[in-house]
């Protein structure tokens, strides 16, 4: 009786898991970048491993029922079967290689940034985001963490020509242009973070003391949430931002509103003079 129940439970677990998979409303939202290949490798892995899981559950269920204990029966005596073990080994090796190969191909794309990718700096700190875009020269200016302060939030080196025209984004909302590859250059002021937009699929830790990167190409317009995906202290769960993928016109309008580092400095010193005047008054 127990054997019968247990065998049924094993079958139920296998079948139930498959049913849950099809019934479940919880699934990823449509990809919004060029990394649909990642979804494909997940699906490939899912179906191959899924078949293996179901097969093993069924096999066990059959054994538990068919070879249930009987007092007068002896088990088969078969300590080794080299041929069977050999075949199972190479079959598994082939299966594993079949999963690995496509994975490595997509990984190769992921770590090879296209030359025309626009560089965008993402600056993470506990617990918010800042962004910097290159000016017309397309080059992000050099920075130094020792220069970071309220008047120079990115620690740009003053006088560096490449940096003076960089656009400093006000607030934690970023805009991207559809179908234009971007390379996120990731910087942190304090601890580890991770710049993650679920619909973009890509991910990379942000490590203080170095610049990490990854690239994407947005493929559909929309408004997406940015999450920090590497634990960064008590406020980790609240470290969220927004990214908008725009058509070219909208993107240009947004760009036009951003101010350069040069103007930012000038504005700051004006405000400083104002405050000094106010203080004198």
């Amino acid at each position, binding site marked *: 009786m127990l054997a019968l129940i247990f065998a049924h439970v094993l079958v139920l677990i296998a079948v139930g898991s498959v049913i849950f998979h099809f019934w479940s409303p919880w699934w990823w939202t449509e990809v919004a970048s060029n990394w649909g290949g990642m979804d494909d490798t997940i699906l490939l892995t899912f179906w191959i491993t899924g078949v293996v899981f179901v097969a093993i559950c069924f096999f066990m269920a059959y054994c538990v029922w068919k070879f249930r204990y009987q007092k007068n029966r002896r088990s088969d005596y078969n300590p080794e079967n080299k041929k069977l073990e050999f075949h199972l080994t190479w079959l598994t090796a082939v299966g594993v290689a079949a999963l690995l190969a496509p994975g490595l191909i997509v990984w190769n794309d992921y770590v090879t940034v296209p030359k025309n990718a626009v560089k965008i700096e993402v600056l993470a700190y506990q617990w918010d985001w800042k962004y910097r875009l290159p000016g017309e020269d397309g080059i992000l200016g050099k920075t130094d963490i020792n220069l970071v302060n309220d008047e120079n939030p990115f620690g740009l080196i003053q006088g560096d020509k490449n940096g003076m025209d960089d656009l400093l984004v006000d607030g934690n909302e970023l805009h991207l242009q559809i179908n234009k590859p971007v390379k996120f250059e990731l910087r942190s002021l304090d601890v580890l973070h991770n710049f993650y937009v679920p619909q973009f699929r890509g991910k990379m830790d942000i490590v203080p003391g170095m610049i990490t990167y990854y690239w994407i190409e947005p493929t559909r317009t929309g408004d997406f949430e940015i999450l920090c995906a590497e634990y960064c*202290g*008590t406020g980790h769960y609240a470290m969220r931002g927004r990214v908008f993928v725009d058509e070219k016109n909208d993107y240009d309008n947004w760009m036009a509103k951003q101010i350069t580092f040069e103007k930012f400095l000038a504005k700051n010193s004006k405000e400083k003079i104002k405050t000094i005047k106010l203080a004198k008054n």
Partner: protein
Amino acid sequence: MHDDNEYKIEAKSDNVSDVGTFESVTTSDVDYLPPKEIPDQDLYHSHSWWTTYVFSQDAKYIGIQYAFTAIGTGLLGLILSWLMRMQIAFPGLGLLEPAAYYQFVTMHGMIMVVYLLTALFLGGFGNLLIPLMCGSRDMAFPYVNMLSYWMFLIAVIVLLASFFVPGGPTGAGWTLYPPQAITAGTAGSNAGITLMLISLVLFVAGFTMGGLNYIVTTLQYRTQGMTLMRLPLTVWGIFTATVLAMFAFPALLVGCIMMTLDNVLGTSFFMPTIISMGEKLGTEGGSPILFQHLFWFFGHPEVYIVALPAFGIVSDLISIHSRKTIFGYRMMVWAIVGIGALSFFVWAHHMYVSGMSPWFGYFFATTTLIIAVPTAIKVYNWILTLWKGNIQLTLPMLFALAFVVTFVNGGLTGIFLGNVTVDVPLSDTYFVVAHFHMVMGIAPILVIFGAIYHWFPLITGRMLDEGMGRIHFWVTFIGSYLIYFPMHYQGFVGVPRRYFEIYDSPYMSVSGLSLNAFITVAALIVGATQLLFLYNLIFSARAGKKAEKNPWKANSLEWLTPEMPPGHGNFGKELPKVYRWAYDFGVPGAKEDYIPQTTPPSAVVGSKVEKS
């Protein structure tokens, strides 16, 4: 277990004569065993209650001490997980502050991985089973073995003390990644993390003392005739895991020491220039990624330090309760050793998106998927052992089979995460949480339960209650599957792990609230059922059904002691002699369906033994 020493089992080095012949040589040629090479050990005899039961040097008692301490600490880990799950599913209750939530996450993880699983498998089952299964009177160095337990206990006390220091325990996540582990934005970044690091250092020191014993005893104090290839797979699993631990724990030790220095003395091993909360710290030039390499150089073998003993034990349970030889014993041994060796070449698969050179990804994805091959072989051999067996669905067997299902599930999702591209979208999400709980939380715990139901009569002389055991089994097995299987789908959605609040966000197409509530309710029920198990332990130890000798009709030496539970010195006057492996079940021509390891060939003349 009584401590009066009726047998004179002091070492007699004159037992071994110079020409190498043993005193009691068997006359029959078929029963010939090569002579002993190493004289019997000196056995320590305790003379007081304190030295027998408290500062015990008897491995069996030390094992039980380890087990009690580990399970007690694990209970705290369980309660912490309840509180976390309540917070995630029912944030409206306002049960926890974010800082407390992260502190509980951290302590839950560290307690379960290190202070429960590692301590219970190696300190608990290692001490109980290695001497008994190898046929020796005790561990090689009983005094050091005793110290090992007391160091472990101090480590636990230091860990628990961190709940009571200013700032509370560390909330850095069990991986303790710097810089956040020691900067202001994380709870317990001063006293809490320091105590955690000290506790780990003590644990490693204590573990090393025990580990030396497990290794030396297995290598040197096997009884006459017990070749390495006759050892039960349980011993192989624990032995290999201990060797791994000896190589892996030093990396953790170094990481802990360096981080303590960074925290206390302001060095910069792991600390670059940092502006923390608007204030520049005085650190410069250190590498946060270096810590991750050290941590995972320990951390990945650690997975196998827990898994290999489970593999070994479950192989024995499946073979004994199927009344069938384990299929492919030699392949099983080599798979254990192979997995152990490979486990040192895969650590950076935890770091695909850590910012390390992306070129590492190719290497570590390849090694990680290679390790799937010996692991798969083990699964095949377990299920092929069932084929044409005579399967008794005893409680230990139910748990063993539940382990196979759970482990296969968790192992297969490991192929997702090990394959570098697939890992990118899934890493740091609930998919990872579901995967590692399935594969190294639930799966090993199921083996521990199976092992306790199996060896409880050896420890107490009584059987655990079957009815309570059945309830415990069904709720734990099905309940934990219901907790963790759906959790993978949260990972597919992209829900990040370590979020104090998982409110519905635009990236979720469907609300996750109901799923979270379901998982939490299941976790509460499964957790509560463990209390029934603890009650069963206490109840059955006092009033359980008396066990007959060798109740499962097993072949290995621990059941063949003159008394059960085994007394001081384990084997009475003379150590057993071993003539065969532990898996002679269903041998054609033999009278019984099992042949104990001590049965000489002359006693089973008609049998057709293929491997011994």
